[in-house]
Every structure is written in C-alpha cells, then in structure tokens.
C-alpha cells in the first residue's frame, strides 16, 4: 500500500486553520503518533479515521492544547495550541470522546453554566434546539441516554460559536435519527464557515461530511486526500458469478488485474480490482473487455456488478496491509 501524497488545500492566500507537521507523541516507550503531517483549510471538515489506538485522540489532544507537541509543530488558527491556549480558548469548541458532564445538573442548568462561562454564547433554547434536546431541559443529565448526552456535549461545544470545532467520535451511541440531526448540524456549521476536525469510526459519517480525510494506522497517516481521490486510488471493483462450465483458468485478466475467486455456497464469484489507467475510464474499459470476452464465449455474465472502491475498502486495505 503506497502512502498517497497529501493534496494541498484548494484555498490559496489564506492561512490554514489547522497545520500539523512532523508531529510525534509518545507515552513512555510507546510512540502513539509517529511523525504526521496534515493541513485543514478554514471552513473545511477534515476527518481522521483509524482503528482504536491509531493515534487519533492523541493528535486531537495536542491540537486541543491539553499537551504540548513532543516533536514537530502544530498550529491552530496560526497559534500554538498549548502555549497560546488562553487566546485560543474562546475561538475553539471541543467535544471530547468521553463526556464528563455533571450528572446532578439538569440539561438546562448545564447549558446555563456553560453560557455563564462563555464570552458570546448562544441562547439556551437555541443551543438545545440545534441538537433537538429542548424537551429534555428539566431532566437530570444522569438520566439521559448515551446518545442524548452526546448531543448535549455537542450543544456545549458549539455554544460559543467556535471558529474551529473538534469532534472526537461525536455520534458514538446515537440512534440513526440523532445521528442525522447531528450530521445536519455539523454540515450547517461547516456551511457557515466553521472548521471541523472530526474523528469517527463510522466511515459513512466521514464520507458524508468530510472534504478531506486521513486514515491513521499505528501512529502514521497511511492514506490522505479528498474522499474521491482516496477512493480513486484504490481501484474499481468488478464482480460476476462464474458459470459452472467456465474453468477458472479461462477467466481473463482485466487491464492487468487477475481475478480473485471466492466461494459462497456452491457459487463461485470472480472479483477484479482494476487500478490501472485513468479513474474516469478504467472501469468502462475493463467492462468492455470483459463483455467482449464473454461474447466470444457466447455466455452472459450473471450478477455482474461494477462499483468504485468504497471508503471501507480503502480503510480495510490500510488496516490489513500495514502490520
């Protein structure tokens, strides 16, 4: 698996909202982050993906100013997130991976507390309205479900209208409807110009929201770029059912790609991953060749499917290939 070069942000002339270069971080003997670089342009949503322990949260914590960068440089809105924490604090919203709300307070009291601590807060009902929790105002926080707590966390993170928003696994524990509410809110914030750094285990979330992604594994960024570019770099998938009278060694190579055969019940399925050639044309050409081959044998292809790589394909390739 080759590491794809970072695509540079399209915006020129503006400084990046987040800049990470050569960041390394270790806990004792364990190197959690091993020299990563990425840039997030203002108003963009950048998603950090990876397995547990890949180094995502450690990276977030450095950017959030909880710990200094051990090695390398990190800039948030042009400032050092650790040294300039005081100046950055009102401009940044943070949603931690674990919530840490005060269980004895009600939802309304929690928001009121944070409003009283913030310089230019949204109104209580406005904030709760954003995450669809207005009807829970009088409920004690300890009685909320996990997903409701996450939404309250999000309301607090956006209460001060931050320029940069850190979301560490924001939709974990949410039901599908709450997740949609959250996605819509995050999308609205991005549309309004908020820069967002997101970590998530839900690839669909990244695919939907992110303008750029990076997949981390074992402390390194293995793949990065726009979702389209990342996916394009991982080929197109062609599959069909191999008829009983076709010997496996008769199957063609498609643009250099050999078939991979999987057995499912009594059925043989041939799968190709076509990576050679122009992403816009390679699947078309490969399918044309495949159809010509089938036509020559006088057979039709059963359950023929053609699709680009999904983010999940890319993710699994990264996680499995790099031991």
């Amino acid at each position, binding site marked *: 698996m080759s590491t794809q070069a970072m695509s540079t942000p399209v915006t020129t002339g503006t400084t990046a909202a987040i800049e990470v270069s050569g960041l390394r971080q270790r806990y004792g003997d364990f190197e959690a982050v091993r020299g990563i670089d990425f840039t997030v342009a203002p108003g963009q949503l950048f998603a950090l993906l990876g397995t547990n322990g890949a180094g995502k949260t450690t990276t977030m914590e450095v950017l959030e100013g909880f710990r200094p960068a051990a090695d390398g440089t990190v800039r948030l809105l042009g400032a050092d997130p650790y040294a300039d924490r005081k100046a950055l604090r*009102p401009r940044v919203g*943070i949603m931690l991976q674990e919530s*840490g709300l*005060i269980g004895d307070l009600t939802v309304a009291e929690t928001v009121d507390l944070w409003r009283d*601590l913030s310089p230019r807060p949204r109104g209580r009902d406005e904030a709760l309205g954003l995450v669809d929790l207005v009807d829970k105002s009088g409920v004690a926080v300890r009685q909320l479900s996990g997903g409701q707590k996450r939404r309250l966390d999000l309301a607090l993170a956006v209460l*001060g209208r931050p320029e940069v928003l850190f979301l560490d696994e924001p939709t974990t524990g949410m039901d599908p409807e709450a997740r949609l509410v959250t996605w819509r809110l995050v999308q609205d914030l991005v549309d309004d110009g908020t820069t967002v750094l997101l970590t998530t285990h839900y690839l669909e979330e990244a695919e939907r929201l992110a303008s750029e992604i990076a997949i981390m594994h074992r402390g390194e960024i293995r793949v990065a770029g726009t979702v389209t570019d990342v996916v394009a770099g991982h080929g197109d998938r062609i599959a069909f059912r191999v008829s009983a009278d076709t010997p496996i060694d008769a199957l063609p190579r498609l643009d250099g790609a050999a078939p991979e055969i999987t057995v499912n019940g009594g059925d043989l399925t041939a799968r190709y991953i076509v990576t050679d050639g122009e992403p816009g044309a390679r699947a078309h050409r490969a399918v044309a060749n495949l159809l010509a081959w089938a036509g020559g044998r006088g057979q039709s292809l059963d359950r023929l499917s053609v699709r680009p790589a999904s983010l999940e394909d890319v993710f699994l390739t990264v996680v499995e290939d790099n031991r």
Partner: protein
Amino acid sequence: MSAMTQTVRLARLDLGLIFRNRSALTNAILMPLAVAALLIGVARGQGDEALTFAVTGQMAAMLLYAPMVNLAGFFTSRREELVLKRLLSGPAPARAILGGSALGAIAVAMLQILVLVVAAIVLGVGAPSNPVLMLAGALGGAVFFCLLAMVISGLSATGELAQLATVPVLLIGYGLAPTMMPMDYLPETVQRIAEYLPVTPIADLIRTGYAGGAELTATLTSLGVLAAWMLVVAVLARRYFRWDPRRG
C-alpha cells in the same frame, strides 16, 4: 468574560452541588457543626476559659471539612468522571476551575466560622478582638487545606479513597493541635512536634485573633509556620494534582 467572573460562577456551582449531594452535605456542613456543638457543649460546663478555647478551636476545625475532606473527594470523583477535563476543554481556564471549587469550599468554612462567632457572642465569649488576625489565620488555613485537598486528590484513585486519606489529617487536626483541648496532656516531645504541624498555627492565629493573649513573637512564628506549610503544599499540589484519570 474575566477569569474572576468564571471563578465565582464555578464556586456557585459547587455550593449548589454540595446541597444536592447528601454525603457532601453531611461531610462538609453538618458533621463539623455537630462535632463543634458537642465539644462546645461539653466545654460550657468547664468554665469560661475552656469555653473560649473550645469555640476558637472549633473555628479552626471547620477548615478541615469543606476545604479538605469534601474538596479532596470532589476533585477526585470529578477527575475520574472526566468532569475536570470537560471543564478544562471549555471556556474557563484551569485557575478558574480549581479556584472556583476552592472558593466555594472556603465560603462554606467561613460561614461555619461565622455561625461559631455568633454562638460565641450568644454564649458570652464576646466578639473577636483582632478580626484581621483571626481572618488571616482562617483564610490562610482554608487555602492551605484546599491545596492539601489537591495533593490528596492527586494521590487517590477514587473520591471515597480520597476522603479516607483525609482521616489521618483529621486525627492530627483534633489530636495533635489545640482545637479540642490544650496540648499540655501530650508528652513534651510530641508537643514540640505538634507546634510545627499545620493545624497548630492555624488554631493559634484564630484564637489569638479572637481572644488575644499571645506574644507578638508567638504570632509571628505561627504566621511563619503556616506560610511555610502553604508553600510546601503548593509545591506538592503542582507536582501531584491531575486533570486526567490514570488509565491502563
């Protein structure tokens, strides 16, 4: 939004939460007053001098509870429940978060001392003769115990363990300091050591401020010993206090 406003807001939060949490209400507010009432009641039967000693000694003892026992538990359980980290991720700086909790605890202790001042006046002990000195002892002592609570919290895994860890300090506060009775009953060497334990100067300063009767040099020594202890716990608090739970 100044850090001071944030500190006061967070102190109000803590005061509210003490009244919602039965164990905090008991540990921070009711128990110390109950102990004081008992000891003052006993002293009443032993003459004016004993009564004055008990009332002023119990004023010092108030500082052991909200600022130490309860605060050590609060800091620790909040750290373990990630509340401290959550607050730190928000708009308030670290000093407002810690200062707010300390301020709430100090306010509780000062109100308890005020209750004892009223009791002293009602019981005929009289009003404080040197309120500034008394307040210096009480506030210095309260700050000392808040810092000690940070140290104890940093060394404790749970809120319950933190409260348990305050028990030896409580024993010193009652047994090896002039809070319950004069230290004459202790062996000479133990008395010498007790002079330099932190609760002794606090009790001496409050008592002298209230009822007079100490030499200037003794008062200056008390102030010096207390200041030294404050410095020691401040250094230890910086070293041991933690915002993050220890994981793994």
